[in-house]
């Protein structure tokens, strides 16, 4: 009984860690660029796949991939922002949504074409194999690592945004980019870097996910729907909100799996509907 419950809670915490990492990136991008980045799931998939390919073809191990893959995918994101996405700033946000949705379909299509839809498996690094028996449950070491690192990265991002000068630029730019640029800040550059950073976070989550989930071309499209619900519940653009909501909803999902498993796939959306009824701007969003 307690074993099953704590097992589901751990799964919930793991899922929640990924929700938090992904919704954080979405929130940052939405805040500064006003773009609902529908390609976020595909960029997460890209992170996992590039890590798998790097190991398969270049012999790059997990630890190097954890650094190199987010960098590479983040740079790709910046190229996309510079070539295409920035042309849509100032237009109806719907255009950005459609463009990034199109990008997601293109990326997923390319990988399906090349690798099919069956999953590739990515080994857990040697250092993080095995686990600890806590008596009431078995705690795999890699899963513990995912939770700790995700929380650390989320906190690091929160700190950078809320407490540093660079973050102050980001917050000011989120509020009034035109005025910030009039003060001499290179806002177009900050936009490109921000998009690259958000995409790199998605790719980082993808590398972290590779040893846990199957690496498949559609792995992102499944998780992204939940992540959008997380962002809506937390409040569009709220940094702390998206982190806390991500972890919290993972846990709620886990609990639901334990008490009434059939509802676990929809519980997030039920919560979203309830929150929107009570607080239309989300739990942590500024009320309009």
């Amino acid at each position, binding site marked *: 009984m307690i074993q099953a419950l704590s097992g589901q809670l751990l799964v919930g915490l793991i899922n929640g860690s990924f929700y938090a990492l992904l919704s954080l990136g979405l929130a940052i991008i939405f805040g500064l660029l006003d773009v609902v980045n529908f390609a976020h799931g595909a960029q997460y998939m890209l992170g996992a796949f590039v890590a798998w390919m790097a190991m398969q073809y270049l012999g790059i191990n997990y630890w190097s991939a954890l650094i190199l893959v987010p960098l590479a995918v983040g740079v790709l994101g910046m190229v996309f922002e510079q070539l295409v996405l920035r042309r849509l700033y100032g237009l109806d946000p719907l255009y950005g949504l459609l463009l990034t949705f199109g990008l997601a379909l293109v990326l997923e299509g390319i990988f399906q074409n090349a690798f099919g839809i069956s999953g590739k498996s990515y080994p857990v690094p040697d250092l993080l194999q095995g686990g600890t028996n806590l008596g009431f449950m078995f705690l795999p070491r890699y899963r513990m690592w995912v939770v700790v690192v995700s929380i650390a990265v989320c906190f690091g991002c929160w700190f950078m945004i809320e407490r540093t000068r660079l973050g102050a630029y980001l917050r000011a730019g989120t509020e009034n980019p035109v005025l910030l640029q009039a003060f*001499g800040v290179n806002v177009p550059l900050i936009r490109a870097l921000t998009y690259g950073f958000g995409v790199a976070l998605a790719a980082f989550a993808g590398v972290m996910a590779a040893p846990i989930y199957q690496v498949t071309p559609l792995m992102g499209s499944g998780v992204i729907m939940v992540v959008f619900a997380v962002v809506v519940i937390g409040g569009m653009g709220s940094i702390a909100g998206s982190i806390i909501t991500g972890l919290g909803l993972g846990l709620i999902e886990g609990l639901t799996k334990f008490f009434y498993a059939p509802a676990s796939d929809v519980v997030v959306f039920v919560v979203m509907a309830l929150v929107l009824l009570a607080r239309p701007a989300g739990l942590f969003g500024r009320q309009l």
Partner: protein
Amino acid sequence: MTSALEHRDELLRLTDLHAFYGESHILHGIDLNVGAREVVTLLGRNGSGRSTTLKAILGLVSRRTGSVMVNGRETIGMQPHRITRLGRIGYCPEERGIFASLSAEENLTLLPKVGSDGMPLEEIYAMFPNLLERRKSPGMRLSGGEQQMLAMARILRVGARLLLLDEITEGLAPVIVRTLGTVVRGLAERGLTMILVEQNFRFVTQLADRHYLIEHGRIVDMITKNEVATRIEALHRFLGV
């Protein structure tokens, strides 16, 4: 002190400047120039295009044509952040533009330096003691007067030499207006160049070297400091006061 030559150094020259917001054509060919250490005002009724002139200088309109020479360089095709740095411009917008989610001190120190001779933080706090007291408060909690002080203070810190000040006395209590008057006079004495958009004519008559009169997006007249006394009637008629 200031040599005649230095005084003629031109920081800004607008020639046939047109500006648009979307489809609406706001400025219909503005011509004006501002020399180093000069204080000029843009006078006119609401909607005549005074604030838009300041925005158009910085490139903050959706489209502008004509010529905007800053320090002798054409900026009509430049991005706003480059114009600001090139002209060492400090901009105080009409709505004050305090970032609500940043603390007072973050607002104060946010702007990148555009020159090396900015005012040190201690001096700024000595000038505006309220801001020192309120430095941890979020921008959205500051009173209108505090926001205006902050909007002025932050452009003093960055070492700007051309200040664009849009209606800085608007809606403020007389005591705060007096403080701002002292500050602006002090800045003029330090040799800063200023363009003031001001509804409060008395606030600027003693201060400004020249006044540009704007109507329907065009400069219709220019009055120097010495002419103000003789033309005060016409001025009042023009401003509708």
